[in-house]
């Protein structure tokens, strides 16, 4: 029989997280600080709206680009939060999670061999989605001394005449880094000068703890060259509903809608009705959750300081990214031993790119009570490692 598989797919490495997932799932009584999703349930009024839409029999497809009501609410929301106007009719598309938005944006924009700049450490899907879209991923290794922000110089150094797109993943998973207005202004200048486009993945935008999140689309000349990706998973604790959206110039959104139409048809209808409720009446929920995350973030940073564990202060998402270089173990060795000896699962930084070596992603999408237990074990573990080294 002929080989049924496509070579470029076989060549894609499985996610580093997958490997660790398999080890952890063998272990029954482990506690985890390894998840990338909120610990809150979706607020009840939002769930109730989903249920109501089912009771009313709203079980049909929506239009390809999504419910008009929802697209209008998204435009209101963006106007209200970042002060930028999009037209609901042709500049917004509802996707199956932010992930689909990233995928179809890349597919709509890339010609074979065009380069996509991917700052790492970052979410695991940018690189494979670029390859699947026929593009060439070019990795920018972010540095701890810059608090894992992207600098104009790093960007400039990575640009070639084949560069088409920069992926801008802030607030960042796994580092928790944010880009403030001045940081964005510096890179926006390079982007305009070099005439490249941006896919700005702002799925964690509501989880910013140093003033309001600033979007690159709010800077001069950037809206016309940016696809803004966001969604409901993180802000409203709606991961399982699989709902996101993309906003951008109508020429690009139009082509993305074409791919979406043939591949997906439309995002889940129930989720879309629930999301309308989230945008209309969910601001208080978002604030409550942000406040809870922020308290945990401060709690963790304080605990790290007390145990002498090096970590820059992250101001976004729900991750901290401590440095474990002092112990002379790789991230994977550290995470594996920590799991075996103390039964706590964390994710090695290398799951998010080679430059994550020497770091761990610790999620604080857990109650303070859970965090306390895990931190006690972490403290015991690193004391032991330090004693071993002597």
């Amino acid at each position: 029989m002929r080989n049924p598989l496509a070579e470029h797919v076989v060549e894609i490495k499985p996610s580093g997280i997958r490997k660790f997932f398999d080890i952890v799932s063998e272990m029954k009584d482990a506690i985890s600080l390894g998840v990338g999703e909120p610990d809150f349930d979706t607020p009840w009024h939002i769930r109730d709206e989903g249920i109501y839409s089912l009771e009313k029999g709203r079980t049909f497809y929506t239009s390809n680009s999504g419910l008009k009501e929802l697209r209008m609410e998204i435009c209101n929301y963006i106007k209200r939060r970042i002060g930028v106007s999009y037209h609901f009719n042709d500049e917004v598309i509802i996707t199956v999670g932010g992930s689909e938005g990233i995928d179809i944006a890349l597919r709509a924009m890339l010609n074979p061999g065009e380069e996509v700049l991917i700052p790492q450490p970052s979410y695991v899907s940018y690189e494979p989605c670029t390859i699947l879209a026929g593009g060439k991923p070019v990795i920018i290794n972010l540095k701890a001394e810059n608090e894992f922000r992207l600098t104009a110089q790093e960007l400039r150094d990575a640009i070639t005449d084949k560069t088409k797109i920069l992926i801008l993943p802030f607030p960042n998973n796994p580092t928790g880094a944010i880009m403030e207005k001045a940081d964005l202004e510096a890179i926006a200048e390079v982007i305009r000068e070099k005439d490249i486009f941006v896919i700005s993945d702002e799925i964690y935008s509501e989880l910013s703890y140093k003033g309001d999140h600033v979007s690159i689309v709010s800077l001069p000349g950037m809206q016309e060259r940016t696809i803004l990706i966001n969604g409901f998973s993180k802000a409203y604790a709606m991961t399982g509903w699989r709902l996101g959206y993309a906003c951008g110039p109508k020429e690009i959104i139009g082509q993305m809608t074409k791919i979406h139409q043939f591949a997906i048809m439309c995002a889940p209808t129930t989720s879309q009705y629930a999301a309308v409720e989230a945008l209309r009446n969910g601001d208080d929920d978002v604030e409550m959750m942000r406040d809870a995350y922020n308290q945990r973030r401060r709690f963790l940073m304080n605990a790290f300081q007390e145990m002498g564990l090096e970590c820059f202060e992250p101001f976004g998402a729900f991750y901290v990214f401590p440095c474990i270089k002092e112990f002379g173990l790789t991230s994977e060795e550290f995470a594996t031993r920590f799991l075996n000896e103390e039964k706590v699962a964390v994710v090695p930084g290398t799951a998010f790119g080679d430059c994550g070596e020497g770091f761990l992603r610790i999620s604080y999408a857990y109650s303070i009570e859970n965090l306390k237990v895990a931190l006690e074990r972490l403290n015991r573990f690193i004391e032991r490692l330090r004693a071993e080294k002597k």
Partner: protein
Amino acid sequence: MREKILNIIERNSRIDVHEMAVRLGTEEALIVEEMQKMENEGIICGYHTMINWEKTSEEKVTALIEVRVTPQRGQGFDNIAERIYKYPEVKSVYLISGGYDLLVTLEGKTLKEVSSFVSDKLSTMDTVLSTATHFILKKYKDHGTIMTTKSEDERMMITP
């Protein structure tokens, strides 16, 4: 800041000041001072414990009693409310809008104890026109806390 302190201690009054200061990104001294002030101002009225008495061997009966009364000139409902809330077995008294006036929560050891309170003490007060007593059969949620089930973390252990 006050609101944030209250939100935390409303859920866990045993939290130590150090942890609260860390979580709110402020100084311990400031928290101590604010709490002291709020105690003096009667904003913080106590540091109680949530108990699910159903799970203990202690027998308890709780009733919600709707009370219709005649308001008194110059006093409104205050006088009658005071006469009712002075009984230690009365856990709460609220003035309510709608079809009746006062909602009284009463705790007793037996049904008989509660009903004799209603018939002997409450209904015989001069200004009380009528009462309707509802016994609580099961508490599903109390003070924002769900009493029936403990939810488990159903998320996968590791996700990107």
